[in-house]
């Protein structure tokens, strides 16, 4: 059985996000190999009804977004699609500039975001992690559930995702120029 097939089988059975590290452990390979194979698997699945989702070194299998309408007929769950203005603003910031602190979000929005962040966490659209560079701070980032609701398999697939970073670089560079 190829490594690619192994990974596919495991992800299918688990039905939950798995880290690259864990996959490497289970399959007895190094992380680099797993990463490369994942990319191949992702490509090969594009022609099937199943997709590979990727986020922060974890992977997950899901149904193709094109099947959304079909599956909705089967699921009895109430699907809420409402995002108030505050929710939309905050999610956009977390998606395009995540991981980001609450202070960072407040800076952009100009209002206090604790309430909306708590709400988005309850809806499993945003998750809170400890800042790896400063254990006193929390960072907010998107969840797999958010990616699923947007029908994208990874954040990078969002339109204009790459350009924002370049713009932010320019903005901070212009500040440096003005001060020199």
């Amino acid at each position, binding site marked *: 059985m190829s490594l690619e097939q192994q990974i596919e089988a495991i992800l299918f059975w688990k039905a939950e996000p798995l880290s690259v590290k864990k996959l490497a452990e289970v399959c007895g390979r190094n992380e680099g190999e797993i990463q490369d194979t994942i990319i191949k698997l992702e490509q090969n699945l594009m022609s099937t009804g199943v997709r590979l989702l990727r986020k922060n070194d974890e992977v997950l299998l899901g149904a193709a977004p094109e099947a959304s309408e079909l599956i909705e007929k089967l699921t009895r769950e109430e699907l809420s699609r409402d995002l108030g203005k505050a929710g939309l603003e905050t999610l956009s910031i977390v998606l395009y500039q995540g991981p980001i602190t609450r202070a960072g979000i407040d800076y952009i929005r100009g209002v206090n975001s604790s309430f909306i962040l708590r709400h988005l966490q309850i809806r499993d659209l945003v998750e809170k992690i400890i800042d790896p560079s400063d254990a006193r701070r929390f960072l907010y980032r998107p969840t797999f559930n958010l990616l699923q609701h947007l*029908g994208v398999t990874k954040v990078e697939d969002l339109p204009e995702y790459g350009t924002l970073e370049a713009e932010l670089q320019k903005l901070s560079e212009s500040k440096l120029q003005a001060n020199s």
Partner: protein
Amino acid sequence: MSEQFIAKVGEFAGPIEVLLRLIEEKKLHISQVSLASVADDFISYLQKLNNQGEASVNDELACCNSNKAEIANFILVASTLMLIKSLALLPTLEVTTEEKEGIEDLERRLRLYQRMKDLSVHIKERFGRQIIFTRELSREITPVFAPTAEITPAGIWQAIKNLITNFPQPEKIPEVIIKKVISLEEVITNLTNRVQSALQMSFKQFVGNQKEKVNIIVSFLGMLELVKRGIISVEQQNHFEDIHMETGGIDTPRY
């Protein structure tokens, strides 16, 4: 500016959003020039917001109470706008490095907010349209009873005793009765009324029985404010003597 701009309950607009709306309503780009031109509009919006906030003090809606705290965020932005407008009117005005950075920071925040607003359209378009569904976990777990060694009657009793000793004690928070202090507005109205009815009065007469230094100072400030507004004129013959106040014809403006 339309009234419905303010009135939407639960969708409170912060200072950056308001500022951007003002600029875009005038079909301008973000620059110091456009910021200077919307400064007055921003201030009047803030005043309306403040009045609305005071009026709803008895309101049960939680959002209105938090609005009052949010209004503080507006003040920093308002002061930066005033600085920008002053610079526009007096280009030779000297600005400190901090003030310069404050102005640049406001411009940057606006640009950033505008960019995020543009990007949020992508999110709005996609959210909930084509959802990627994952498999539902339906693995059944058969429960197994596996107690550890410390779960004995004695062990449980000890645990309960420990829990009770470690109950958090209710904190005794010291309370202070807040004394009522005269507000500046009350003093000004008071003074205006009294001076209008009696054409002249001395400051000592006005202060009357009040002993508290705070209240004397507030009264003095009230008197100065009336002088500034041209409602009264004052005179003091010598240092530390009583101050003589009189109305100089209440309706004639003073320049």
